[in-house]
């Protein structure tokens, strides 16, 4: 039977004095992903092995881990991509380890929350009762950055985030730029208060690793450079003067068709 060896970095704080590697030999089948291999290890060899995963289809961003030395999604990585040798699996670096392959992502989400990743509007219509007007060109400005699934792969690959405790990292900065670029948003100046200091994009030296490893093609490095450009022009007083997209009114001559029920009341 065709087999594959998984070398997995294990660590249980309070029990193990330091992380260590353990190897598991499991059957290999065509089309098998790294995540499926982990499940096979857990089911047949080591029930106590811990990792995060949910959707199994590269959408939820839970299963980011170091696979053969590179940050990747375990569910999105076929064993066939990795060749015939052993598969090494370790938790994402630049984060504390909670257990085995589970990193503590709280610093990333704290930084994310800090840059206010939501629509900010002066007219109070951040959660409006209708649609906000936006052209296809305006959507294009931020669409790529909105594909981020917060898996943490970019944060694990960033050499600046690895060494600078103040730097926010590629994901929060890319998401700040995603909202700064959104024509429905007016929060540029609020975010600027945070981004113009050490938490901002200034320590980024464009290593580009964040964009190389991003499983969704978000290109955080590009977002960070565009953010630098926006803040530079803002400092010169040449920033874009933009009014937030207005609420779209109902079209003329249109009425609600009979029999269509009202939307249920909001629960959140």
């Amino acid at each position, binding site marked *: 039977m065709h087999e594959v060896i998984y070398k997995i970095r294990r660590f249980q704080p309070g029990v193990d004095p330091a992380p260590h590697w353990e190897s598991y030999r499991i059957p290999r089948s065509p089309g098998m992903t790294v995540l499926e291999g982990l499940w096979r290890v857990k089911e047949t060899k080591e029930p106590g092995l811990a990792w995060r995963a949910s959707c199994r289809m590269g959408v939820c961003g839970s299963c980011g881990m170091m696979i053969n030395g590179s940050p990747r999604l375990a569910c999105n990585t076929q064993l066939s991509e990795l060749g015939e040798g052993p598969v090494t699996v370790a938790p994402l670096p630049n984060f504390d380890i909670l257990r085995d392959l589970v990193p503590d992502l709280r610093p990333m989400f704290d930084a994310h929350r800090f840059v206010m990743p939501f629509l900010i509007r002066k007219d109070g219509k951040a959660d409006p009762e209708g649609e906000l007007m936006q052209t296809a060109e305006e959507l294009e400005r931020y669409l790529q950055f909105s594909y981020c699934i917060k898996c943490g792969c970019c944060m694990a690959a960033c050499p600046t985030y690895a060494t*600078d405790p103040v730097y926010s990292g590629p994901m929060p900065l890319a998401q700040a730029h995603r909202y700064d670029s959104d024509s429905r948003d007016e929060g540029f100046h609020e975010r600027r208060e945070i981004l113009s200091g050490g938490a901002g994009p200034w320590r980024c030296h464009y290593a580009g690793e964040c964009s190389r490893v991003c499983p969704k093609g978000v290109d955080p490095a590009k977002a960070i450079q565009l953010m630098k450009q926006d803040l*530079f022009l803002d400092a*010169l007083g040449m920033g874009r003067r933009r009014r937030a997209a207005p609420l779209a009114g109902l079209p003329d001559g249109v009425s609600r068709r009979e029999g269509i029920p009202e939307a249920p009341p909001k629960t959140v």
Partner: protein
Amino acid sequence: MRDQALWTWHIISAAVIGGLLGLHMAIMHLDALLGIFNPAGGHPVDWENVVARSKEAGFAVNYVLLLAAGLFHGFYGLRNILFELNPGKGLRGGITLVLIAGGFGLFALGTWAVIAGFQKAGTV
């Protein structure tokens, strides 16, 4: 706000250096074509030509501007490189202080040299 302002000045100083270095290169290497910055003829670094340029107020301003832009750009870049080594908060402050003091010291020395050259060249 401070990092945003420093970065902005970093870019502006780069643009200033680009322009003024272009002028320097033109003086040093395009004299045969331009023939305006070296009135004594010969090589651009000949004593007579250096004195002639030093008499010009425009050149004095040019030198001081280039000095200021070069010092700011270089020292801010050096600070970034040193910060990459992840020094502690106190050491960061110390590095910044030393670079500011060094920058202002070199700027004062260079400006003094330009002004002295400008004044003395008039008497040569």
